[in-house]
C-alpha cells in the first residue's frame, strides 16, 4: 500500500491539529520523562488514559493488522503521526515495552491466540508490559541469567529475581528470560522466553527508590510462581534467540513497532528558553557573555550529534572507521544530556538549589530531576567509562585495559 507525498502532508496537518487540540491539560504534578520514570499512581493513570485516547483517535498502531486492533494503514502514516507527537512534545506513549518490543515480537512470532489475546490490549493500554531480562548479579550480561524455570508437567515453576523492571508495579505481563536447563551445552542454550503474567501468586514487585527520590524501577521476586507452558514464546531452550530478536525491536534495528514516542524531548532549545527567563544581575541570564558562550557550545554539539547520525549513513564519509559514530553515539549523547541538564541548573541562580515539590522550583524542578535522571543513560547500557574502553579498543584498535 503506497501513500503519496500529498496525502502524507495532508495527514501530517490533520494529526498535528488533533494533537494540538487534544493535548492534555497540565495535571498539576510533574510528569515523567519516559516510561522508566513512572513513579506514582497519578502519573500512571494520567499517561494510561492519554495513550488510550491517542489509540482511540487512530494515531497508534496504525500499521498493525486490523484483525488484532491495529489500523491496517501504511507505516508511513504512523511515522508521520509519531513525528508530530515528538515535535509537539505531547506526553509520551507509556506502554513502551508493549508497543515497541513485546508487541512486534508477538506479531512476528506469536501464535494466533497470543496475537488475539495481547495486541489490542497493548495498544489501548489496558495491559501494561514490563521486561524481565536483567538480574541483580548480571547487569548487562543477559546470557548469564539465573532465574530458574523448572518444568512440572504442563507448567513451569519460577524462582529468582529480576531487576530494573520499569512499570513492574503496574504491569499485567512481563517478557521474561529464564533458565530452564542449567545443564545445557552452553549458557545460551539453557534459556527460555516467557510471556509471564504478573498477577499470580509468588510474584512480588518491590520498588527501588532512585537518586531523584522517585520510584519507577523495581526488583521483581519470583517464589515458586507457577505458569502454564502456553506462556512460552518460541520453543523451550530458544530463549536467547527470542531475546536477541526482542533487542532488535528495542534498538529499532527491525521495524514493526506500534509507533508513538517513548520519551519527552529535552534539548538545547529548551535550555535556551530557560536562559531567556532566568535572571542574572538584574538582566536575563542570556545576556551574560559567558552564558552565551556556553549556550552556543551546546547548540554546536547538538547540531553535531544530529549531523553524525546523518553522516553515519554516507559510506564515503565514514570509510576510515565505519563503526565509530554508531559505537560512540550512546556515550556522546548521554554525556551531552548530562552536561546540558547541569548547565540548566547553573542558569537558575539561588533557585537551582530548590527541588521538586517547592513552589519556587523552576519548571517544577524539571531540571534538577533531569540532571539526576541523566545518569540513567550515562550508567545504563554500559557506563561511559566502559563505553570509552569499548570504543578505544574496537574502533581505535588500542590494546585491552
Amino acid at each position, binding site marked *: 500500500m503506497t501513500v503519496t507525498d500529498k496525502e502524507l502532508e495532508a495527514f501530517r496537518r490533520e494529526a498535528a491539529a488533533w494533537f494540538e487540540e487534544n493535548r492534555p491539560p497540565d495535571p498539576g504534578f510533574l510528569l515523567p520523562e519516559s516510561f522508566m520514570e513512572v513513579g506514582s499512581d497519578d502519573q500512571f493513570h494520567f499517561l494510561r488514559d492519554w495513550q488510550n485516547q491517542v489509540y482511540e483517535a487512530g494515531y497508534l498502531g496504525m500499521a498493525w493488522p486490523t484483525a488484532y486492533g491495529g489500523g491496517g494503514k501504511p507505516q508511513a502514516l504512523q*511515522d508521520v503521526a509519531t513525528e508530530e507527537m515528538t515535535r509537539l512534545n505531547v506526553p509520551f506513549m507509556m506502554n513502551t515495552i508493549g508497543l515497541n518490543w513485546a508487541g512486534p515480537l508477538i506479531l512476528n512470532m506469536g501464535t494466533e491466540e497470543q496475537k488475539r489475546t495481547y495486541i489490542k490490549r497493548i495498544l489501548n493500554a489496558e495491559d501494561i508490559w514490563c521486561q524481565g531480562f536483567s538480574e541483580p548479579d548480571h547487569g548487562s550480561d543477559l546470557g548469564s541469567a539465573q532465574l530458574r524455570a523448572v518444568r512440572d508437567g504442563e507448567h513451569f515453576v519460577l524462582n529468582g529475581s529480576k531487576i530494573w523492571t520499569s512499570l513492574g508495579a503496574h504491569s499485567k505481563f512481563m517478557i521474561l528470560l529464564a533458565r530452564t536447563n542449567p545443564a545445557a551445552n552452553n549458557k545460551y542454550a539453557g534459556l527460555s522466553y516467557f510471556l509471564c503474567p504478573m498477577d499470580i501468586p509468588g510474584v512480588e514487585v518491590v520498588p527501588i527508590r532512585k537518586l531523584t527520590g522517585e520510584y519507577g524501577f523495581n526488583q521483581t521476586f519470583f517464589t515458586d510462581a507457577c505458569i502454564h507452558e502456553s506462556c512460552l514464546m518460541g520453543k523451550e531452550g530458544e530463549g536467547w534467540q527470542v531475546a536477541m530478536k526482542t533487542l532488535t525491536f528495542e534498538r529499532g534495528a527491525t521495524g514493526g513497532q506500534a509507533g508513538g514516542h517513548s520519551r519527552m524531548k529535552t534539548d538545547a532549545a529548551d535550555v535556551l528558553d530557560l536562559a531567556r527567563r532566568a535572571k542574572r544581575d538584574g538582566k536575563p541570564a542570556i545576556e551574560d*557573555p559567558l552564558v552565551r*558562550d556556553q549556550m552556543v*557550545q551546546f547548540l554546536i554539539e547538538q547540531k*553535531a550529534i544530529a549531523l*553524525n547520525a*546523518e*553522516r553515519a549513513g554516507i559510506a564515503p564519509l565514514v570509510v576510515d572507521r565505519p563503526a*565509530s559514530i554508531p559505537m560512540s553515539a550512546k556515550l556522546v549523547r548521554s554525556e551531552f544530556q548530562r552536561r546540558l541538564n547541569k548547565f540548566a541548573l547553573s542558569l537558575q541562580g539561588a533557585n537551582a538549589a530548590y527541588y521538586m515539590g517547592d513552589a519556587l522550583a523552576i519548571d517544577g524542578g524539571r531540571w534538577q530531576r533531569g540532571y539526576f535522571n541523566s545518569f540513567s543513560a550515562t550508567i545504563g547500557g554500559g557506563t561511559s567509562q566502559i563505553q570509552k574502553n569499548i570504543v578505544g579498543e574496537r574502533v*581505535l584498535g588500542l590494546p585491552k585495559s
Partner: protein
Amino acid sequence: MTEIQQIKFSEEQAQLLEIASNYCRDKSPIAEVRARIETEPGYDPAVYEEIAALGWLGIAVPEAFGGSGLGLGEVVTIAEPMGRHLLATPFQSTTVAAQALLAAGTDAQKAAWLPRLCEGTVATVALTEPDGDWHPADPGCRAERIGDGLALAGTKTFVGDAETAALIIASVALDGQPSLVLIEASSLPETALQREVAIDETRRSCRLNLDGLTVPADSLLDPARAETGMHHIQMVQCLLLAAEMCGGIAGVLDVTLEYLNTRKQFDRFIGSYQSLKHPMVDALTGLEASRSLLYHAATVFADDEAGETAVRMAKAQASDSFAFASDRAIQFHGGFGFTYDCDAQLYRRRALWCEYQQGDAAYHRRHLAELLL
C-alpha cells in the same frame, strides 16, 4: 521522512575525496614534509603543477573562466586530505584568491586572472594587519586616488605564499570605505615582502609593506561588492581551515595511535592504560563532530544565513578538537613528545596556526551568539 537533508555528498565528491586522499598520502610522507620545511619555496613546484593539471585549482571556478564549475563542497574534499598529510602548497591561498575575485572582482579582472589561477599561477589574499584583529571590515591600510592610480600605504600580515604569488588581493580603506585592490607581484619593490616566522613551519607567509606603492585605478575590485566580498573571503578561509583541521585531527590521531600501540612501559603497551585510552576516544568523538559539521557547512555554504552559521560552527569545533588532539599527542609521547623529532609537534603547530587564523573557537561562538540567540 520529510526532514531536510543536512549533508549532501555526491558521487563526484566521493571520487574526489578518494583520489585526493591517495594523492596526498603518496606525495606527502612525513619525511617529505620535514624536508620541505628546510627548503624553499616550502612546497614542491612539481606537485603544484600536478594539482593544477588535475584541475583542482579550478574546481569552484565557473567553466567560463577555465574552471570546472563545481563548488566549495568539492574543494573541501581536497583540502581535508591535504591537512591530514600536512601537504603544503599554495592550493588554499590560490583558491581563496579565486573566490575573492568571483565574489567582488570586475568582469575584466575575472577574465584576466581566473583562467591563469586555474592553470597554476599562484595568488593570495592580504586581509590581516599588525594588530592581529580578526575582524577585517575596517582595514587600517589606506588607498588614495592620485591621478590615474591608487597610492597605497600600511602593512599587511600573514600574506600566505606571497613570495610565489603573482597576484595579491589586499583590503584597504579608500575614501573611508573598505575596499579590495589587486596588486601584481611584479609591481612590488624587492623590500615590500618580508618573510614572517610562523609557528607552522610548513607554511610560508610574509608581511607586506604597501608604503610608496601605486597601482592602476582599475586594480580596484567592484566597490559595491567589496564589503560582502570581504565577508565571503573570511567564510571561505574558515571553511578551508576547518577542512584542513579535520584532516589534521585524523592525521595526529594516526600518529598517536601508532605510538600507543607500540610503546611499552611497565611491561604494557601504553595504549592499554585508560588514562591514555579515554582521552583518545575524546579526540575521536571530537573528530567525528568536526567532520559532520564540516560536511554540513560544505553542503549549505551557498545559503547566506545557514551557510555562515554552519561555517562558524565547523571552524569553532575543529579548532577546539584539533587543539585537544594535538596537545594530547605531545603529552602521550612522553619524553619523545618534547623533542623536535617527534611528529606530534608538526600537528600541534599546524593546529595553532589554523586555530588563530580567521578567529578561534570563542570568537566564532560570539558571532554565532548574535546569529542564534
